[in-house]
């Protein structure tokens, strides 16, 4: 109910002002009932809201009817214009980064081989992270007992790291002053410098 001590709302213009302020300041859509309670008795809240909506039609801000009431919204054409996409790139966890690097240099490579090179177990979660990122893909199965899946990198991997092809990766011998001893059963590392051709990524 309107408080009797408030100055009377003289006319439609005053009622429009109140409806405008209420719709603007309310955290939730303004219902006709809530507005009606604030208006002097005998006034049609629906009519006031409709008049207000008409006044804002075509403006940069519009009064629209949403679930449960009326709310000011940025005009759709301008909202689209004002929308800004903020890029927040994800970081790959260290384990995933190491695994990816090993796959890049040793592809096609099986999971046990990756574990051998890293000297640590490879969790399914890590592999899933790389798969979700579209960075690695299965590259057939190795014809050894258990026929383990072999893994390789994807074109998305090349794009992510700004490489034209795998040959752009620095050669292993340029990375290591003293090359680490090779695990006996891992497949021979491809030399990205090109003495040995790398299998084409399938993606």
């Amino acid at each position: 109910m309107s408080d009797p001590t408030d100055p009377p709302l003289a006319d439609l213009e005053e009622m429009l002002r109140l409806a405008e302020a209420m719709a603007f300041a309310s955290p939730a859509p303004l219902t006709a009932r809530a507005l009606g309670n604030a208006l002097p008795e005998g006034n049609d809240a629906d009519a006031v809201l409709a008049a207000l909506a008409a006044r804002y039609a075509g403006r940069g801000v519009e009064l629209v009817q949403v679930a449960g009431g009326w709310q000011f919204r940025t005009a759709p054409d301008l909202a689209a214009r004002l929308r800004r996409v903020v890029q927040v790139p994800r970081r790959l966890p260290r384990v995933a980064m190491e695994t990816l690097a090993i796959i890049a240099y040793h592809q096609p490579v099986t999971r046990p081989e990756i574990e051998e090179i890293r000297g640590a177990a490879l969790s399914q979660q890590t592999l899933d992270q790389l798969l979700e990122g579209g960075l690695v893909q299965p590259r057939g199965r190795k014809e050894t007992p258990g026929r383990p899946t072999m893994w390789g990198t994807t074109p998305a991997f090349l794009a992510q790291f700004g490489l034209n092809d795998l040959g752009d990766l620095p050669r292993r011998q340029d990375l290591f002053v003293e090359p680490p001893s090779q695990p006996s059963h891992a497949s021979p590392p491809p030399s990205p410098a090109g003495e040995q051709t790398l299998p084409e990524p399938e993606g």
Partner: protein
Amino acid sequence: MAAVAESPPPEPVPADALLLRLDGFEGPLDLLLELARGQKVDLARISILALVEQYLAVIEGARRIRLELAADWLVMAAWLTWLKSRLLLPSGSEAADEAETAAEILAARLRDLQLVRAAAIWLGGRLQLGQDVFARGAAEDLTETDRSRLAADLPGLLRAYLAAARRGASGRRYRPAALTVWTVQSALARLAQLVGSLPDWASLERFLPEHMASPMERRAALSSTLLAGLEMARGGAIRLRQEIAFGPILVGRGRHDAPHDTLDEPDDVRPH
């Protein structure tokens, strides 16, 4: 613009009234300022001596009624007592000059506090957002966060490779890989879960878990799956069959009409 400052209390507050609401003061300086305002003159011209006497009277009164007074009230009282004794000395002496200076500083501090009070009242008289005027109630966030991109560059990849290769190389003394042991319990659960979904007489190997990469692990898993199979066959839930010696062991659904007909060819089943 809203009304600016509330005007200060028009009447000086009598000392005994102050006494009753000492707790309402924010410390000795606050009380001193209140007393000074009671002098009804500009703060620049207050009588420090009169002020000191008023303060000491209030404190004395408070101590008569209840002894609980915070230390800073008493520290101020002691200092003001010292100040009073010096202010009563004939002017010209060094002690009197010192007291004059101290009195000026006290007056300055009171003016500073008065200023703070006036500023707070001015601020309080402003139209405040959230109190008197309201901003938009429902926020509309037009920014979108795109986390699809990856923060990874080539140097990071190379660092990771070096770190992994070094660690792998340094740890490459003989160290048996930790075995993933596929327990009979797990095998039982998996068999029970899969037996309905695979065609009858599927090879036992198809009931092995995935991701059993090393041959050792596979063999261990095969043993536990066979043990689980024997256990389930005993209960009639499945049937086992091996057509030739050392050939694949085949798994079929149990015959519910003959639950006690256990193994079809029990003699053929042996671990390999």
